[in-house]
Structure formats: C-alpha cells, structure tokens
C-alpha cells in the first residue's frame, strides 16, 4: 500500500425481500446504512443495493462525511429480525442463495466492501492510529 493511503473495510448485510407492492420485483435493504434499492430478481436486487451503497459511501467519503453514521430505524431492524427468526434459517453461499430464489421470500446476505482512503497524514501518524485497531482485530 503506498504511503498516505489507508484501506478500510465495511462488513454490511442486505435484507432481501419480494417487493410487497410491485409484482416480480425484489427489494434490497442495507440496514446498516439505510440504503434501499430494488431489482428484477433476488440477485439483481442484491447487485443494485451494492451499487447504491458504493455510490453513497464514495459520495460521503469524497465530501468528508462519515458514511456509517446513517442506519435504518430500530423498527426496520426489528421487522427484519422478526422475519429471519420466524422460520428455520438455512445457510447458503451467495450463488446457492440466488439459484434457490424461486421458493424464497426473504434472505439476509453479507456485503463486504473495501475502500482505499487517501489521507494527508504522515504514514507514521497513520500507523500509530491503526496499531490499536489491528491489535483489537487480531
């Protein structure tokens, strides 16, 4: 990694449901950032949500805003949690998930994004900040 840059990773999740009011559409909701999009299939809704999340995170970072300060309201989290806990959960890979969308009504899918952030901080100062975070993660 070149001096003056820092890699930042965000681990998010997307709650995917059939649109309750638009025939044939799926809705993707990144609850962590309260970003919603939709698509013609579960896979498409996931891809659309990822695109929307990427656009907004980049917009925030370029404007000097912290992207993770927004989140869906508590009732949205509770509704998603209720749905997920209302049946026996099954674990799938993403490709298995999308291949089985025909008989599904909802899914919770991971979304991991990495960003290279350019900083004017001296590399030594950056390392000083990052060291405790790395130790915490280890």
């Amino acid at each position: 990694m070149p001096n003056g840059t820092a890699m930042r990773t965000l681990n998010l999740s997307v709650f995917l449901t059939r649109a309750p009011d638009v025939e044939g559409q799926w809705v993707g909701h990144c609850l962590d950032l309260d970003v919603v999009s939709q698509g013609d299939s579960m896979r498409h809704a996931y891809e659309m949500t990822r695109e929307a999340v990427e656009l907004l995170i980049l917009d925030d970072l370029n404007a000097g805003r912290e992207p993770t300060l927004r989140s869906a309201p508590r009732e949205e989290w509770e509704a998603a949690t209720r749905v997920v806990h209302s049946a026996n959960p099954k674990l799938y890979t993403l490709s298995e998930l999308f291949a089985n969308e025909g008989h599904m009504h909802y899914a919770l899918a991971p979304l991991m994004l990495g960003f290279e952030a350019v900083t004017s901080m001296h590399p030594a100062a950056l390392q000083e900040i990052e060291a405790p975070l790395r130790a915490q993660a280890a």
Partner: protein
Amino acid sequence: MPARFRDIRRALLDYGITAEPPSSGSHWKLRDATGKAYTLPCHNGDRTEISDVYLRALCRAFGLDWHEFMRKL
C-alpha cells in the same frame, strides 16, 4: 402504493432535490440543498415502478414527511 420513477423525480423537485443521471450503472443520484445524497433506482427506465419500501427510506434520508410526499405523487 408504489410509484413510477418519473413521478418520484417530479415530486422531489418540489423539495429542491435534484436528480443526476448515472454515468454508469442503474441509479440516479439525488441531492438536496445541503449536499446530502441518496440514490434512485431506474433499472427499467422511466417507467420503473418503485416499491413503498424504497419510498419510505427515501423520505427518511432527506427528512421528508411521508404522507405529504405521497400526496405529491
């Protein structure tokens, strides 16, 4: 009640929220006077029908009154 992409764009203008077409991908970028941004899906063109689930999140993002916004559609 879902809404069409073009009607949402028109209603947002009443709040001074502008829409910028995508340079790539399928989302328009919305922006209010303070610079706050949100995205608007348009994967099926101008006639894209958009769910209430999205419309509620859109209102939250810009602090719009849901009922008032729905009356403008």
